[in-house]
């Protein structure tokens, strides 16, 4: 792979929204990274060095959730509503009753959006501002960690 190839390669990538590019052949290996979020590379180093690969399957269950939706890009005026505690997410006060909110609903500041149950206590999660529900990220009765995204909303 000579300088011309690289040039072509770089141009190609620049016209896209690719943030990282890696390629390996018998002869050579190329790694390109755009933008300035150094986290990704930081994570990379430990992951190989540390026994992460050792127990990958197991990690999914709880842990991948937050990072997952933390990454999904937001439209402008959109906000993430995260869980302040560990517990179980409920969209309605009881199985029979209607959900606190539905996608598209507009909720006022202080209005209850859901419940996170911890130690048999029903903790009502209230909206801090008036907003429209864009997405309900968690399924009803799903376990949530501290910092998990519960809703994506649009400020009004």
């Amino acid at each position: 792979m000579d300088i011309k190839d690289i040039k072509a390669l770089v141009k190609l990538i620049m016209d896209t929204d690719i943030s990282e590019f890696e390629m390996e052949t018998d002869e050579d290996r190329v790694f390109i990274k755009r933008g300035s979020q150094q986290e990704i590379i930081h994570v990379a180093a430990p992951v190989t060095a540390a026994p992460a690969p050792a127990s990958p399957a197991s990690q999914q269950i709880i842990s991948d959730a937050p990072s997952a939706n933390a990454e999904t890009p937001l439209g402008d005026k959109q906000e993430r509503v995260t869980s302040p505690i560990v517990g179980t997410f409920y969209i309605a006060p009881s199985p029979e009753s209607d959900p606190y909110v539905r996608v598209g609903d507009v909720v006022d500041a202080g209005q209850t959006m859901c419940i996170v149950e911890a130690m048999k206590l029903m903790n009502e999660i209230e909206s801090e501002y008036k907003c429209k529900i864009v997405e309900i990220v968690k399924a009803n009765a799903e376990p949530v960690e501290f910092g998990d995204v519960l809703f994506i909303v649009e400020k009004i």
Partner: protein
Amino acid sequence: MIHKVVIANRGEIALRIIRACKELGIKTVAVHSDVDSEALHVKLADQSVCIGPAASADSYLNMKAIISAAEITDADAIHPGYGFLSENAEFAEICQNCGLTFIGPTAENMRLMGDKISARQTVTKAGVPILPGTTNAVTSAEEAVRIAEEIGCPVIIKATAGGGGRGMKIVHSLTSVPNAFAAARSEAKAGFGNPEVYIEKYCERPRHVEIQIMADKHGNVIHLGERDCSIQRRHQKLIEEAPCSVLTDELRKEMGDCAVAAAKAVNYSSVGTIEFLLDSDNKFYFMEMNTRIQVEHPVTEMVTGIDIVKEQILAAAGKPLRYTQADIKITGHAIECRINAEDPDKFTPCPGKIDGYHTPGGLGVRVDSAIYDQYKVLPYYDSLIAKLIVHAENREEAIRRMDRALEEYIIEGIKTTIPFHRKVMNNKDFIEGNIDTGFLERIKL
């Protein structure tokens, strides 16, 4: 039997517990603060739950969050490790009320032994020698002076709720008692929210010798011999070894029997440690009991061949001890060096990113650590990053082995106390076994 354990801790002890569980076929759940998501205990556990922000009060000390983590992962037991909630009686109670097995002693055990004054009263009844001194809180400077006169200087003033050196004052003359008394009380208030202090005889050049005990829920209590933890800096242990080089078999038996008696006196049902002061005449005095697994437990594991954490878990699950006192044999000599992310001379913490990591190997070398290359040692938590433990046929060989293992141990990117430990391993007095709790203040390394 226990099926899934939430490990309410971090760092090397969380790893230690995960390893024991894996070998027992028990599933593990790591809980962690948001800044700890790259920590090794999170990577090695079967599951992990983020329970709060960096501040320990909101995460590793957050009982509600930890219990919730157990609920959402269907765990049936919690291991508190050491520090954090490990000696919190309320937490033990909450676990019980939530139907979770707390892997440790009962709340009653902790309350009784956690408070120094009630502990002294309890063990005294059991016939365990304590230092002459007050068993009740001393309330006035006048009373303090009278007691000091009674006991005879030097005396030490200690916080009843205290530990780890804070709120301790050594007094060599009666005249300085009132000031020391006031100082100790305010330190105690600041440190533990409780100003109560008590006074006892202060003995010169003592060794810190502690007995590891192991008990089950069927009334069986045995001891695994002693550890000499005399190498301390400001009452923080830095190097521990087993056996203690001045202990005779007779003295070992005597101290061991006392420790067992103390444990039986409170119907103790887990692993624990009875700490003694051993003076230069080989007279020993009860100091306190630690109702948890201790940082330095590995040296005892090396010389007895017993996996103490496994026994602790099995005991919590209601299994009887797999050993009788007769089974316990001390073989060879073990030393542990606590490697901290600190300046080796000033002992100031040096958190940061590890850039270049290589652990020592070979015969008789054990590393208990949760760090890895490119891992960031965080400023929010304890500076202990690794425990290097060696086992050899005798103390001399153990010291040589430790020195070569320390030489092999490469931790780049941050300062560590490895150079300090190498100095100790090459110090004439240490090699000759001339050690006591004043060693580091006295010796110029």
